[in-house]
């Protein structure tokens, strides 16, 4: 059976997209800034609808719509359940990922045609997510200790104050797994959300540019960059991810993140 290119999308909400936090009161180190950006603040669970638009260099567009439900556990576990709503040929496909509790991530994929959950291997982090310009490394939770984070400066980006932080992989293994040699972040000071990121290769050339915009207040001091656009400067394509109908801290039970729920084709 063919394995569909899904993955540990632990995700969009946990990683780049959900940059939630509270304003800084003092100057922070690069690592502290990235931690604040990477953590989910007071948000323990989140559900949202996602629209993913993949636009090729020639302008051809593919649109995917998904729902995402995620939860962070007290024991550093993260659980995510993704369900595709469209296009029609992938509707009902669902993906469950549980990470951080028993060693290696546990991933299951449900294909309606198969009719049963299938345990799948963890994807390579540098692989494309669903044919988009995001890799699994891009959308997954950043592993803070895999990088050296250095605060380069603070500056204004547009009309906002931002921290500019450089993250360099601590080893060749991490570098190979993630597919870039260096990443430079522009993190909003006011909300610790992502404004921009540049991905550089071994020659110092920028290969991808990520832009985060449309910051929304989710309450309880949590903020979200609800629109993310990744431009691939090598291929000329770009992918836009937009979050809608975001709900946080709604008390999603643990038993939602099970293979039982995975097989329910809608809800």
């Amino acid at each position: 059976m063919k394995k569909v290119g899904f993955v540990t999308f632990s995700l969009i909400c946990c990683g780049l997209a959900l940059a939630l936090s509270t304003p800084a009161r003092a100057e922070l180190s690069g690592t502290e800034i990235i931690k604040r950006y990477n953590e989910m603040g007071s948000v323990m669970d989140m559900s949202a609808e996602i629209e993913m638009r993949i636009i090729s260099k020639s302008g051809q567009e593919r649109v995917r719509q998904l729902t995402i439900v995620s939860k962070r556990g007290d024991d550093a576990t993260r659980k995510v359940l993704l369900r595709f709503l469209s296009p029609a040929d992938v509707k009902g496909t669902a993906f469950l990922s549980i990470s951080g509790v028993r060693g290696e991530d546990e991933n299951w994929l449900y294909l309606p045609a198969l009719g049963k959950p299938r345990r799948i291997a963890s994807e390579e982090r540098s692989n494309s997510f669903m044919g988009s310009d995001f890799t699994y490394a891009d959308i997954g939770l950043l592993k803070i200790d895999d990088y050296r984070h250095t605060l380069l400066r603070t500056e204004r980006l547009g009309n906002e104050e931002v921290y500019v932080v450089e993250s360099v992989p601590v080893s060749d293994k991490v570098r190979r797994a993630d597919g870039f040699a260096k990443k430079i972040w522009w993190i909003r000071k006011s909300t610790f959300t992502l404004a921009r990121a540049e991905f550089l290769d071994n020659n110092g050339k920028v290969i991808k540019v990520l832009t985060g915009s449309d910051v929304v207040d989710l309450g309880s001091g949590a903020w979200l960059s609800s629109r993310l656009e990744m431009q691939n400067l090598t291929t000329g394509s770009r992918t836009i991810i937009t979050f809608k109908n975001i709900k946080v801290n709604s008390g999603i039970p643990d038993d939602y993140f099970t293979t039982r729920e995975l097989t329910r084709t809608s809800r």
Partner: protein
Amino acid sequence: MRSRRSFLSPVAILVTELLFASPVAAGGLTVDGLVTAGAEISLAGPKVELGGVRLTLQFEQPFSSGALRARVEVDRSIRLREAFLDIYLEDTDLRLGRQRIPWGTADISNPTDNLNPVDYTHPFAEENRLEVLALRAQHYWGDWTAEFVWIPFFVPSPQPEPGSRWYVPVPLPPGFSLGAPQEPAKELNNSEFALKLSRMGGKADFSLSYFDGWDDLPSLHPDLDSMTIVPVYHRLRVLGADFATASGKWGFRGEAAYFLTEDRERTDPAIKNPYLQVVLGADFTPSDAYYFNGAVAVEHVAKSAVSLKGGPLEEGTTSTLMLTAEYRPRFELTCGLDCIYNLTGRDFLLRPRLSYSPADGVTFSTGLLLFHGPAGTRFGNFAEKDYLYAGVEMAF
């Protein structure tokens, strides 16, 4: 096939009653569709066979604690493939109606998947299992699931008609003809049931299962009075186990099933002796562009207690190798090669294939089915039936 029509009526009545009896709807009715069209060209002929256009419609009506679902295929005829009611209780899910119950973790071959008959009239179709009327109950606690399945009426596997493409003549002794099949009476005493205990989570998923039902394929019994060979269906009990685990870019799967046939004493030459099937496989995804899957299947049939020289049934061990390789240079383009090689009979099936999806919901596909092997072997029987296929699918 004869039994399908008889299943429609009670299911249709049930669906209708439940539709009108469900006062709390959780959402509107959704309808999804798939249009497929294709053609096949026999390489031996050459002869072109148009597959026609098929419309598949899927209906779903969710309600507060479950859903009604149905799937209908329309081409020259209308077939109700699935129609069932899902009821979600606190720790238990119930599914009642015409349904497919896929068991097993392995790819290509699933020894523990014995609840739905195989449609041998389309043996190489991707979806060649037939749905049956069944009650399925799954009770959950933590990572564990206990499952019970009841199939009130046995449905045999349909066989190709004489003269059809996949028909393989039954070897008959001189002077004998083939008699009418003897199927179990449609009584509750003859219903099938199955149990499964499974765990999904942790380092590996695994399950243990038990099936008590009927062999989907008949045994051939000589009737000397009428000089006929009579296909007779027999009871079958199956003890099964499976597992699946993953590490890095690798996935590992396996299944084993012990088939306890009616000939436990191994003395009846017409009934297959008890046998064991084991499948072990692995898949590997090195990058976006490549995917590999391989498995080995072994079947061991217990030796007969009496001499079966010249007897019709096999004994001993047979092995099969199954390999799949895929190359995906772009997201919308997939090239693949599937191979099933019987190590014992030295016969094989080879299927190179190509699919292209120029837009969401639209897929063009083409490929070859190539058979090779000595006469009398699984694929050798079809050695003159190689064909090229091409088709398009549009989902909406």
